Structure formats: structure tokens, C-alpha cells
């Protein structure tokens, strides 16, 4: 049991952090998720991959936490920096993705995280989020599009290094 929890700890916590953007909330949701996984392990369909099933439980826990947060109207200090912070340098491109994620719609963000961080397939994401595969493809496409737009407006262009795509278009 310990080995199972240790293996699942990182992806579950990572998903919770990305979805909730709050350390304490994420740890609580991760704990709840892992407890549920352990208690309901007998209900897992062994013919399917374990991780999507675990992440589906985690995503549900995160949604519940988000609903709880919005019901309470609680102001939380989110992990991401403010969007109007100074433009990032190229070395901070990874952090800029985190900032962009914070501005995405919840569905797009979940889809993006499951695809790029958890490396789930479109089919697995559709199982986790309980939506059709076509919806997942649409959400992923829009998430990528908005992410790219955010990065461009933050100073990252075609060849990187802070070169703005818009500036390039205007000058070119």
C-alpha cells in the first residue's frame, strides 16, 4: 500500500497544485484523493490504466474543492504571480506557462495539464473529465491557442528570446 501511495503521490499532488493553485488546498485534495483511491481500489477496472482512474478521482476532488472555495467566497493567495508583472525573460518561459495557465478557463486548464504534465492521451482525458473525445480535442486546441497568445503578448516571439511576434509582424 505504501509503495502504491508513494508512486501516485507526485502526479496526484502535481495535478492538485495545477488545478487549485494553492499549496494547502492542493495537499488536502491530494490526501483526500489518495485515501479514496486506497479505499476504492477494489472497484478499479484492472483492464484499464491505473493513472487515469486515479487522476479522475483527483480531478473530482479538485472540482469539489474549487466549488467549496467559490461557495465560501474565500480569498486565497494563489501560487501564480499577477498577470501584470514585468515581462519575463526567456529563462522564465516555463514560469510564464504557469501564469498563462492561471488565466485559462478551468476546463482548458485541466485538459492542458492532463495532456502535457500527466501525459494522458485524449481518450484517457475524456475518461478522466467525463466528456467526449471531441470536446477534449477542442479544449486542448483552445488551451494551446490562448497559451501561445499569452506568451506572444508577454514578449515571446517566433524565435524566442523576448522577440514579440506582433512587433515582428508590424516591422516585417
Amino acid at each position: 500500500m505504501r509503495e502504491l501511495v508513494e508512486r501516485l503521490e507526485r502526479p496526484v499532488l502535481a495535478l492538485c497544485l495545477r488545478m487549485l493553485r494553492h499549496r494547502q488546498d492542493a495537499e488536502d485534495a491530494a490526501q483526500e484523493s489518495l485515501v479514496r483511491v486506497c479505499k476504492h481500489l477494489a472497484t478499479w477496472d484492472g483492464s484499464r490504466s491505473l493513472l487515469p482512474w486515479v487522476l479522475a478521482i483527483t480531478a473530482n476532488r479538485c472540482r469539489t474543492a474549487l466549488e467549496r472555495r467559490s461557495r465560501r467566497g474565500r480569498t486565497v493567495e494563489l501560487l501564480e504571480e499577477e498577470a501584470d508583472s514585468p515581462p519575463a525573460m526567456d529563462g522564465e518561459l516555463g514560469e510564464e506557462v504557469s501564469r498563462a495557465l492561471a488565466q485559462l478557463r478551468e476546463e482548458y486548464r485541466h485538459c492542458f495539464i492532463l495532456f502535457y504534465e500527466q501525459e494522458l492521451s485524449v481518450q484517457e482525458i475524456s475518461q478522466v473529465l467525463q466528456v467526449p473525445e471531441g470536446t477534449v480535442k477542442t479544449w486542448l486546441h483552445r488551451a494551446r491557442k490562448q497559451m501561445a497568445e499569452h506568451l506572444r503578448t508577454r514578449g515571446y516571439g517566433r524565435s524566442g528570446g523576448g522577440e514579440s511576434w506582433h512587433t515582428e509582424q508590424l516591422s516585417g
Partner: protein
Amino acid sequence: MTCAEFQAGLQSAIETRDAAALARLAEHGEQCRQAECRRAWEDEQLLRRAIALWRAGPKPVGGGLVDAVLREVLPPPAPSPAIAARPQRSWQAGSILGAAVALLLAMLVLAPDAGRTVRLAGRTGGTAEAPAAHSEATGSPAGIADAAPQQTSAAVDAAGISGAYVGLAQDATSFVTDLAMLVVPVAVDDPDEEAATPSHWFQRLGEHIEPVQDGVKNKLGEWFGPPAT
């Protein structure tokens, strides 16, 4: 490859993580003069680089998360029943034994002369001065000694001595057992831990002994006769 094919192929390659398909699309993406194709390809390049850096960032570490989950999932280790019950049983048994010893001592102290009489009767083979009527009525050890005043053989003497002591021990034991049965269940079955503490136990022992105090005196009188004055 047309621009429409390129854009559809790019979307599909991204969704299926098909690196070979992306490599095939690279030529068109880099050379096409259509703004849409160029932009789609540039976005793909930018996102690939950004996501790689994002994924390489610090990984979350759940401090104590595993232990917290296991504490909630796994049942706590139960203490050994024998070890858990031992201290309670220990003081209960000690209290019972102490009460029994105290009662035996009380009996001997309250009627020292009678005790001496019994011992004397046993040693002399029934020459002790004990009331015959009392002895006949009770069948006490003293009575056994008195019942055969004329017996002088060693065998009869030995039988009289051993019979007297065995009878005394049996009567004393059964009395103490009866008294303990009367008192002990109250202390042992009491679910209230505070009420079952030794001080309460002894208090209750006194309360329970009080009603039978007369009975104790009568029993002692039967065994040893009236106290010497």
C-alpha cells in the same frame, strides 16, 4: 502538401504526440508563405519550448503526505489484549488477595483464645476444655477433638489433629470465597474507570462488609466460642 492538409496534420500530430508526423510537417511549416501556416508552426515551436521548460520546473514534494494517507487508510496497530488488560487484573487480583488475608488475620485476632484452643485440642487429642454442647452443634474442629475424649492411640491423635486443621481451613476458605463473590463483581464489572480505582474499591468493600458484619461475628462465635474476657 496543401495548407489545409498541413494544418489538419499538425493538429492530429499534436493530439497523438506523433513525432514522425511533426517532422514531416516541419518542411511545409518553415517554407510556406501563408501567414496561417507560418503562425501555426511558430506557435507549435514556441509552445514546445515553453512546455518543456515548464515541465522541467521544480516538482511538487508532498511533505508527509504518504504517511498521512496511510494513517487514514490503514487501521491503527491494536495494543496486545494481554498487555492492555494486565495492569487492571493485577490490581484487582491483589486487592482480592489482600482482602482475603486481612479477613483471615481479623478472624485470628478477634478470637486468639479460640485459635489456641483449637491448636491445643489437636495436640492433646481432645483434652482441651471446650464446651461440648457447642462442639456437637457445630461440628467444628474443636468438636472433633471433643467427640473422642478417651482416644489415646497415636493414630487417633494424628487423625484428630489433621482433621481439626483441615476443617478450619475449609470453613475459612469458603467464608472468604463467599465474601469475595459478594464484593468483587461490583468492582470488576463497573464500567466507570474512575469508580473502579482502588480507593473506591476499598470504600465499597467496607460498605459491603458492614451488612454482613453480624454474620461474621456469628460465624466466628460458632467456630471459636464466645470471646474470652
